[in-house]
């Protein structure tokens, strides 16, 4: 379970893209809840990468369906250095 701080940082990056005003919970899904198109997802991934100074490999993306998935992945990558 990702830390609240990581979730908050990610939520802050999602907020400007959250056109429908969906309430952001850890289990919120990018595709079905937020309905982000692929271009928006790509921009968001890039922003998360730059915010945390990490790489989110393309291979990983299909498994990252919810905000919590992303937060967990970010923490895992960050802790591995």
């Amino acid at each position: 379970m990702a830390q609240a701080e990581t979730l908050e940082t990610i939520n802050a990056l999602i907020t400007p893209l959250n056109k429908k005003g969906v309430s952001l919970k850890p289990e919120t899904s990018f595709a079905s809840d937020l309905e982000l198109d692929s271009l928006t997802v790509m921009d968001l991934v890039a922003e998360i990468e730059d915010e945390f100074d990490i790489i989110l490999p393309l291979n990983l993306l299909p498994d990252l369906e919810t905000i919590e998935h992303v937060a967990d992945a970010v923490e895992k990558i960050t802790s591995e250095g």
Partner: protein
Amino acid sequence: MDLFDKFDPVVQLRSSLPFEKADPFKVVMDEIISETEAIVEGRHTILAGTNNYMGMTFYQDAVDAAKKALDDFGTGTTGSRVLNGTYGGHKALEATIADFYDMDHCMVFSTGYQANLGMISTLGGKDDFVIIDADSHASIYDACNLGNATIVRFKHNDVDHMEKRLKRLPEDAGKLVVVEGIYSMLGDAAPLKEMLEVAKKYGCTTLVDEAHSMGFCGENGRGVAEALGVEHLVDFYVGTFSKSVGTVGGFAVSNHPKFDVLRFVCRPYVFTASLPPSVVASATAAIEGIKRSSNRRAHLWENANQLHSGLKEAGFNLATAKAESPIIAVQVPDVQLGTRFWEQLLLQGVYVNMAAPPATPAGIFLMRVSVCAQHSSEQIDLIIERFKKTAEIVGLDLDS
């Protein structure tokens, strides 16, 4: 559960498009009159969406060589390059391409798609990183899926974005940067000088796909890297015979001393039949011809510039500020209007490619025009005129 249910959204999208008389994905060329003209449903049609940039499909030497090879070697090799499928012609073609690129080694694949699929999936191993542009061709994305490398993606043609990512990768890891000289949908060129310099700064191996730039970019037609004077920064070129060379097949060239081992470890090279001798012979003759084709090159660029400035003047929304390649992409606001525009343009006697996501970057709908060195300037004028007329008929607003 019907396995086809998952395709229902595609079926729905297609059936929602307002075609009446023609479907852009089901066009049949009944007769090919020349490099630039065909009969489509009985109508005389100017071909302006064929990627036949150098117009080599009826090049006499290539046609003659193919006929002779058919007579001498038969219709096919019926085997893999590493078993019975390597004839003298395949070796001669590899030597011709290596010479064209002034590099030591060449491998010929059965398609350009397989060349990318094979090279990228094989070079990028389990512990390696493959770094790609977001607008990469499907063959590059598929290569990433086939291989075991970690895939890093940067924003299209964005050098800073790429560098930021390269900075985060382990210094001593194997890293392959994959870029294209010309991107096929928008027809825009990559800032290869800056990109390759940055790639080299971070110790990356570089692979440049010149599929849509071979033949007419650079003094010898090797592509954008040659045109920008940065060939020394290219470790691998990948290219195709299905565009400027006028037939089908693909290749990779390199100076890497261990290059030849790829013939044993690259599965899309090993586990498929080699190109038929006639295709090999016509590719060889066409590449020899391209070397001597500075006139065609010059006329192709004239055509590209004429079309770009004509459409721009008419107020069409073009993907590039000037002609960066023979691909001139006209943006249309949505798929509905795009569909009607494409259909009406075909009825006016001009064939172009209708391009929509996922072939194009998300949210972009295009009338993708590609010109040929064999188009006359009168044909280019006709294309422009018919674009204008079509815009009027379907009610596409033009900038004035």
